């Protein structure tokens, strides 16, 4: 199956099996260095990418859903200005995810930060996440390297930076 999509702002034409999961496409076809998952059951949470600006587990996305889609991996995200909010939050709090889950947890944090901006910029179904939601969402990645307090500290610090930007959209 031929699929045209945008990965990290690059237009790509993929020839892959229609049911191949996105994480395998990124690893096999594009050799994305930050994708290191082969759990195949959505259980490790180590394969998060942004699909149409929303965090998804790439192992649960089949190739046929990628037609015309915009995918941002951690490598692409690092080139965006929003990455610096989280980078600075990690520095300020002195806590950061371990190298194994760094990419995934960072993208989950980013998806939570987007709801902060959306909820402040007008009527939206996305409410600013409460503490339980934040810890639970980040817990999608099963790596235990951050405890609940560290997760909340990182989120609050990053949210403060994000609010200062007064960004309306990605």
């Amino acid at each position, binding site marked *: 199956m031929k699929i045209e999509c945008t990965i990290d702002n690059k237009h790509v034409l993929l020839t892959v099996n*229609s049911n191949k999961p996105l994480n395998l496409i990124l690893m096999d076809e594009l050799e994305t260095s930050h994708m290191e998952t082969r759990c195949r059951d959505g259980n490790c949470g180590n394969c998060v990418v942004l699909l149409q600006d929303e965090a*998804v587990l790439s*192992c*649960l996305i089949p190739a046929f859903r990628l037609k015309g889609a915009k995918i941002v991996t951690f490598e692409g995200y690092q080139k965006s200005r929003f990455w610096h909010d989280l980078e600075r939050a990690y520095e300020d709090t002195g806590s950061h995810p371990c190298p194994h889950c760094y990419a995934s947890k960072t993208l989950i944090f980013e998806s939570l930060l987007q709801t902060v901006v959306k909820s402040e910029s007008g009527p939206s179904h996305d409410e600013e996440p409460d503490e339980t939601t934040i810890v639970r969402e980040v817990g*999608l990645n099963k790596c235990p390297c951050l405890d609940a307090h560290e997760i909340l500290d990182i989120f609050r610090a990053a949210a403060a930076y994000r609010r200062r930007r007064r960004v309306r959209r990605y």
Partner: protein
Amino acid sequence: MYEGIRSPAVHMPKTMNDLVSASTRFPNATFWAGGTFIMSRHDYYPTRESNDIISLGEVPELKRINRTDRYLEIGSMVTFEQMLTVGKQVLPGLLQTTLEGTATKIIRKQMTIGGAICTPQSRLSLPGTLSALQAEIEVKTCLGQKTETRWIDINRLYDRHGTLQLKKNDLVTRIRLGFERENFSSFICAGNPMINLEETVMLSFACFYNQAVINRFRMCLTFPTTMFLIPHEIDMMMHGTMLPLSTQQIDRVVRSIMEGVFSSNEHEIPAIQLERARRFVESAMHELNAQSLSER
């Protein structure tokens, strides 16, 4: 590594007519809703046996939430997260708790109500809750170019072991819920129904009462791969009972349900599931008592 693996043909109907036509032309194709269950199977990819796929994601009729005077009708391709945006006034409390307790927001944005109902091998949390809420399901049967539509009680979708009773040419298109709200509800889940199939137990319980007299007592106990138990006799037994329940009444309910568990399953059920089921029922009864006392 992937040599000899067939790439399944993907059909993406855009209308109900196209969908009916596709399902008639490709009777062995797999209906694809959100894909979270199918793709989380260990043997999903690579595999040599790949059926064609009919993706339901582009049929607008299946994505609608419709509110009438008497019912809330939800399209089968509505995601869990979209349902949560319907609002607390419209969505029954038990359904809201169940949806919020299922996975994380990131996954809920992909999980669909139809997919959660029609998982082939195991029962997830939603069917039990819809059963406790006495939901009705619209099933379309594709007969050549014609379709036959019928509304059925959700309990008729499964047998006592939780096996899906739909035929190959049947398609779940809508779910209908009444607006009558339960006075007390409880959803308890231990374990992950996607992973720990042998340990997970889910209890959905809705109780309707008026002036401390029970009118309806709806309970559904789900063991993902072995049981989908709706103890109708308890509903009859508890009808007209005054709240709060006495210790003897609670014991009688628990005993009766556990007898139902043993009698309706010839397989050996792991001890952890039995113990969890017993505790969940007890816990729900005590919570019901606490609420009824607080309302006095």
